[in-house]
Structure formats: C-alpha cells, structure tokens
C-alpha cells in the first residue's frame, strides 16, 4: 500500500493557508465560476454569521500523530513536532474557570501523544467540564505506555469519539494506513470491555464516519444502523452513535482531490448541496477553536487555513476576552460549503 506522507514532509505548496485558499478560489475557471459561500449565506439571511452562546472549547493539542491519514485536514503525522506546551494548557484552564463553555473537545493529531495530556484532562475534570477526546484508536495499541488509556478515560468520564471509515480492513486501511483497521478493532474491543459504548453504562463511545474517497456521506441514521449491525456481527463491538462527517476540501484531502482529478466535481457537489437549515446550525457558532500555539479560530478548519478569529487584539489566549469574542463575525470562505452540504456536517455529525 502506498504510504502517505505529510504535506510538510513533501514540501507541498498546500502547507500554507494562503495557498490553500488560492486553490479554493482560483484553481480553475470552473472553480472561479462557483457561487461564493458568502453570497449563499446572504441569500439565506445568515450573513454576517455570528456566534450563539459559547458551549464548546475545542483544543487542538498538536499536529503530532502516530498515523498519516490520506484525508487529514490537520496534515498531522509522526514527523510533525508542533505540540501544545503545558504553559498554554494552564492559560486554557484559567480561561475555562470563568467561561460559559461547558465542554472541552480535545483533538490533534493524536492528543494523547502530548506529554501533558493526562495532566490537562485531570485539570479539566477537576473543573467539572465535559471532556471529549478525539481518539484515533490505534494510539491505544501504539506502545505499552498507552495501553491503560481506556481506564484513564473512564476514570475521568471522558467521552471518546473515534474515527472508523468502514467496518472492513480494505477501505479503512486505504484511508488511514496499513494495519489501522486491525488495531482499531482491538482498541474498540478494549473500550467495550470496560463499559464504553454499552447502553446505559454512562461511558460514551461514538464513531466518526468520513467517506473514504471523493463523495459525500449518506444518511447518518442509515450508516449508523449498518455499522451497528456489522460491527456487532463481525467483531462483537458496540458503540453509541455514529457521526457522519463530510471531508473538507483543505490540506491533505484537498491535495488528494486535486491529484485524483476529483476536485472541481467535488466542489460543485458541495455547492449544489448547500442547505440553509444545515448552515444555520454550523458548529462554529457555539465553538471556539484553539491551536497548539494558543491562537483562536472559529473552527479547526479555519485553524488549518490560518484564518484567525475576526476580533481585534483578541486572537490569542493571552488576550482572551470572551464577551468581545461573542460579538465577532465568523470568518467564512469557500471551504465552508463542506459544513453546509446536504444534512450538514460538524464534529458532532449532521446539523439539520
């Protein structure tokens, strides 16, 4: 199987936000002729898009990861060394003491690879925040020091959200790398063994489904039903909910779309599937996203495009002013069509 390398490793032009935005807007005349996301939002009376109450603090703890998935919007991988310092985490803890955000969503890379991850989770737990960890599953098997992660998650009531693009090896490994499926299944079984994903256990294990190719996800409910039947039948695995997430045309997925000749058709499909109801429920309205180096963004995707929040002198944890942030206009661009297509897409699945 072809090994995926990070865009940074390959010294790709798409490593910078500006170059990605240039491809999103000027790749070809076909791309240039697409309606702008801003105009679509205006027509839906959703422009300028403004935040609702802040509920979720999404913290990207770094780009370091044990996997190099083909579709990764973070361009994460083992070669990426950018990770959050404990000092930055301390600032987040201080901010969260007086924030309206009730949930902290930890993502990466593999957030567990950050040496201060466990300390951070313990502090968040002490604050009484709901904690989501976006766990890639294979990290649990990566080496002995991670084998007790399921128990650690359980001890702090962590809500585990894990990616699994399909219930067979072929599709999963094509998207996420050789051997990922086998380890993911083992990790899910380990989580199930201690109660995760079991009905009424109180320990939530949700799966994220990303299409393994240049197509959109189908009905979330139908996919969830299918995954539940097949994972139970084939591997005796249970989980709570399945979130169907559209792949965003940025970073490594954008590179894949361009290299495979699917980019223009994919963008047209996203634009044609614009759904105003999904647009009204986009996750950037109740979320603030923090990067490994402490900058503030409307979402993890804007973070990767280096589009900081539009809030003057309030773009870093050092200047954090929640009241002022709540008055900002959310930064939009053509990639936002990824969150408003069909039933909509967010880190929590469909939005309509």
């Amino acid at each position: 199987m072809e090994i995926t390398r990070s865009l940074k490793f390959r010294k790709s032009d798409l490593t910078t936000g500006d170059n990605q935005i240039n491809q999103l807007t000027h790749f070809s005349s076909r791309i240039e002729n697409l309606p702008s996301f801003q105009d679509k939002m205006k027509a839906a009376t959703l422009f300028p898009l403004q935040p609702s109450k802040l509920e979720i603090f999404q913290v990207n703890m770094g780009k370091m990861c044990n996997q190099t998935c083909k579709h990764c919007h973070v361009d994460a991988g083992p070669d990426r060394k950018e990770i959050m310092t404990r000092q930055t985490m301390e600032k987040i803890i201080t901010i969260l003491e007086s924030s309206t955000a009730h949930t902290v969503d930890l993502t990466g890379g593999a957030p567990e690879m950050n040496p201060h991850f466990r300390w951070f989770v313990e502090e968040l737990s002490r604050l009484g925040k709901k904690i989501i960890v976006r766990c890639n599953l294979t990290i649990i098997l990566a080496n002995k020091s991670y084998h007790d992660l399921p128990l650690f998650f359980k001890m702090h009531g962590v809500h585990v959200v894990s990616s699994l693009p399909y219930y067979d090896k072929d599709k999963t490994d094509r998207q996420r790398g050789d051997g990922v499926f086998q380890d993911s299944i083992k990790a899910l079984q380990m989580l199930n063994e201690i109660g995760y994903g079991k009905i009424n256990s109180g320990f939530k294990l949700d799966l994220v489904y990303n299409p393994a190719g240049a197509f959109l996800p189908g009905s979330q409910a139908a996919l969830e039903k299918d995954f539940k039947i097949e994972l139970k039948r084939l591997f005796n695995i249970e989980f709570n909910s399945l979130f169907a997430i559209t792949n965003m045309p940025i970073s490594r997925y954008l590179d894949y779309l361009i290299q495979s000749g699917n980019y223009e058709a994919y963008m047209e499909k996203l634009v044609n599937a614009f759904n105003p109801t999904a647009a009204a429920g986009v996750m950037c309205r109740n979320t603030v996203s923090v990067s490994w180096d402490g900058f503030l963004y409307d979402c993890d995707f804007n973070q990767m495009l280096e589009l900081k929040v539009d809030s003057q002198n309030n773009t870093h944890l050092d200047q954090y002013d929640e009241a002022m942030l709540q008055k900002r206009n959310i930064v939009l661009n053509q990639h936002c069509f990824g969150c408003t297509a069909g039933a909509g897409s967010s880190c929590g699945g469909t939005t309509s």
Partner: protein
Amino acid sequence: MSDAYYNPDDLAKFKEIGTFAPDLAQKFFSYYGDVFKDGALSAREKSLIALAVSHAVQCPYCIDAYTVDGLEKGISEKQMMEAVHVAAAIRGGATLIHSVQMMNKSKKLGM
C-alpha cells in the same frame, strides 16, 4: 453537439427531459423519488438493485449515479460487485435457458 453518443455532463441535465413534456416528467420524477424511499426494502437495498439493473440495461449514466449513491450509502465495492454478478448471472442464465429452445427445435428437426 457532441461527437460522442454519451457525455458524462448530460447526467446533470436529466431534468431537461421535461423540456417538451413537463407534466409527464414531473410525474416520472415524483414516482422515481417515491420508489427509492425506505419502504419494505431499505433505500440501501434499492440502491444495490438499481446498480445491478443499470448494468443489465447497460446505462452508463445510471452506473455512474448508482456507484456514487452506493458509496455514499456505505455500500462496499465487494457488495456492489456481487450485485453486478447477480445481473450477469440473470443475463447469462437468460441466454442459456434459450438453449433449451434450440435443443427442442433441433430435436424436432433431427433424425
């Protein structure tokens, strides 16, 4: 006018079949939409049937459309290929069963 009989861009123009017969097209699309809803068969099962039939009637537009639809519905390539084999088996069987007619005729005419 394209030089080829089949143009992939024409798939997106399916609605244009209503140009000279809008009422009939409207009835067709309404019926089509209802056929593919979840019913006694799931939308997923219907998508697989549509893919198999697309191969049997050799419609490249339908094959494109129901391959994408299948992928979106989480149908694997293995499942899609098995559905195509169902179509192939029926087409092959339909050819072969006529050999009985051939043999009947041959038997009748032969000494």
